Every structure is written in structure tokens, then in C-alpha cells.
């Protein structure tokens, strides 16, 4: 009989994440349903609650969300070895696909029609970007405080004088200072 709860070896974890990486089309957003179907439903290695928790934390950590979730789950399954298996697995399909495509791209850009297509696709990409902003907007800008941070950061970014890293550090400081003031106020009351 096929054992659903097969052993969690380095290679079996790698295989699952390689599959997820290959199916991860259109960005990392779809990783949660993929993880749930592969790891919770098919393998039974983790519960979907655990996966949801890892996903939620991953979105609040720096770096690529899909990579963060992969490291979390890999680590939970088989420690550091599992984390390495997961991250290599989820990255490899993307890596190979891009190397192959990049080699082809440099050849085909000499065709006029290819340039026209890329001109058109540029519009599609900018559309997707603004739609992503709209999606983020709903979960990010919830009150006056977050609106103020948004406006200040936008102005800083548009001025062209500050690197994104500086703006990120700025917002971390704003968060820390706000919480510090708040904690002290509560203590004093």
C-alpha cells in the first residue's frame, strides 16, 4: 500500500519543493494553496493551520515570501537540512527557466515584432504593478498613522535622493519610536 506519511528525507523534501517551484507561476502569491495541497493534503507532513501561520509570518519578514515559507516548512520538517532541501528545490525551476530564456532573449530581440510585443507587454506590466499596489493598499493603509507613513515614504522615494533601503530603515525607526512612546505612556498612566 502506498504510504501517505512517507519518510521526510532530504530528497523527498527537495522533490516536493521542486514541484511547487515549477508550478509557481505569476509570482509567489500562489505558494500557500500549493503548499497546502502538497504538504498538508497529499503528504500529511504539516497541517494547513501551521502553513497559514508560516505564510503570515513570512510576509512580515524581509526577502522573497515564497523563499521564506519554504525555509520555514523545510526547517520544521527536517531542521537545517530540510530548509536547504526546500530552498534549493523551490528556486531551481526558476533558475533554470531564466537561464534558458535569457539565452534565447538576447537572440530574438533583433526581430522588430519582438520589440513591439515587449513595448505592449510593458503596459501590461505597469498595470500589474499598480494593481499590486491596490491589493497591498487594503491590507497596509488602515488608519491615519499608516497613511502618514505611506505619504512620507512615497515623497522620499519620488524625490530620487533616497535609496529604498534608507526608506525601509526610516519606517523601521518610525515603528520602534512610536511603540516606545506608546509603551511609556501606558506605564505613566
Amino acid at each position, binding site marked *: 500500500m502506498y504510504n501517505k506519511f512517507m519518510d521526510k528525507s532530504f530528497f523527498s523534501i527537495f522533490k516536493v519543493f521542486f514541484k511547487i517551484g515549477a508550478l509557481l507561476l505569476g509570482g509567489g502569491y500562489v505558494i500557500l494553496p500549493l503548499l497546502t495541497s502538497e504538504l498538508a493534503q497529499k503528504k500529511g507532513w504539516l497541517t494547513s493551520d501551521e502553513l497559514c501561520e508560516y505564510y503570515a509570518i513570512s510576509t512580515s519578514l524581509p526577502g522573497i515570501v515564497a523563499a521564506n515559507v519554504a525555509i520555514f516548512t523545510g526547517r520544521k520538517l527536517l531542521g537545517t537540512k530540510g530548509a536547504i532541501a526546500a530552498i534549493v528545490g523551490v528556486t531551481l*525551476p526558476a533558475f533554470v527557466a531564466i537561464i534558458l530564456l535569457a539565452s534565447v532573449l538576447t537572440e530574438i530581440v533583433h526581430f522588430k515584432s519582438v520589440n513591439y510585443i515587449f513595448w*505592449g*507587454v*510593458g503596459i501590461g506590466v505597469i498595470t500589474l*504593478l499598480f494593481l499590486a499596489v491596490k491589493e497591498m*493598499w487594503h491590507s497596509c493603509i488602515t488608519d491615519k498613522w499608516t497613511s502618514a507613513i505611506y505619504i512620507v515614504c512615497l515623497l522620499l522615494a519620488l524625490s530620487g535622493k533616497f535609496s529604498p533601503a534608507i526608506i525601509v530603515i526610516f519606517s523601521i525607526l518610525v*515603528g520602534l519610536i512610536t511603540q516606545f512612546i506608546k509603551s511609556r505612556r501606558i506605564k505613566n498612566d
Partner: protein
Amino acid sequence: MINIYLLLFIQFFKIGVFSFGGGYATLPFLYEIAEKFHWYSISQLTDMLAVASLTPGPVGVNMATYAGFTTSGIVGALSATFAVMLPSFIIVSIVFKILHRFKSNLYIQRVVKALKPAGCALLSAVGIKLVFTANLHLIGTLILIVFLISGFIKKRDPIFYLGVSAIIGLIIGNLHWIGV
């Protein structure tokens, strides 16, 4: 002169440390790299973003691999991809050990709450800059507006916008309405 592999490593390591918000969060940093180092042009960046949306894997990984590969071949691709992942590996490993303290810490909650609008603002800024640098012409701007309105009304698959815009580009280009 600093070794190109090392420079790639440093720049993409920085992305791994500072990009918040997933998906396109790496974009503001990739834009900065295009301006500063000219490893790829802004228009190559949007081309690549389209390609990344159609290929497997997270966009951030795709971009790291692509930038590394175009600047210095397969070793560059490995260097940049490894660099963008390394901070995740370190940070997640630490957070994994202190998961419960991490979730309940008020300072962390507040910082995360501040980082989200910052990430959103950075992405908005890139979008605005792209509109002005992408050589859209009048017709392209009009198409963008139509796309945005349609996207705000109804959520569609990213492939829809890329597919339709590719066809539009092909038609308009061949009619010689734009000089690309």
C-alpha cells in the same frame, strides 16, 4: 575595482535584507540597481518582469538570476540568486526558534505595521517612475488607463493583461503608430 561577482552578491544580499511585502517588493531595489550600475536598462527590467510573470518561481528569484546572468554569466546568476536567498535563510532560521516571542512582541508588531505602507509606497513610486520612463506614447497611456479601470472593476489573471498587451503591441507596432 571590486570583483563583479562580489558586487552582484552585495547588491542582491541587500535586496534580501531590505525588501518587504512580497511579490514585487524587490522591484524598487532592482530599479535602483538599473539606475546605479547599468547591469540592465529600465526597459529590460520591465521586459524581464513580464518574462518573470510567465515563468515559474518567485519574481525576485527570477530577477536575481537574470541580472546575474546578463552581467556575468552562470557564475553571476548563481552569485546573485544565492545572495538574495541568504538573508531569508538566516532570518527565518532565527525567527523559527523564537516564533512565539516574535509573534507577541509589540515592537515587532508595530515595525511590521510601519513597513507595510513603506513597501506599498516604494512600489507606487516605481510604478509612477515607470509611467514616465517607459516611452508609452499617447496610445500606450490610453491603454494603460483602460487596463487600470478594468482591473479596478474586476480582478483578472495577470496572464490576461500580458497576453492582451502583447497582441496590442504587435498590432500597433506593425501599423507603425509608434517608433519602437
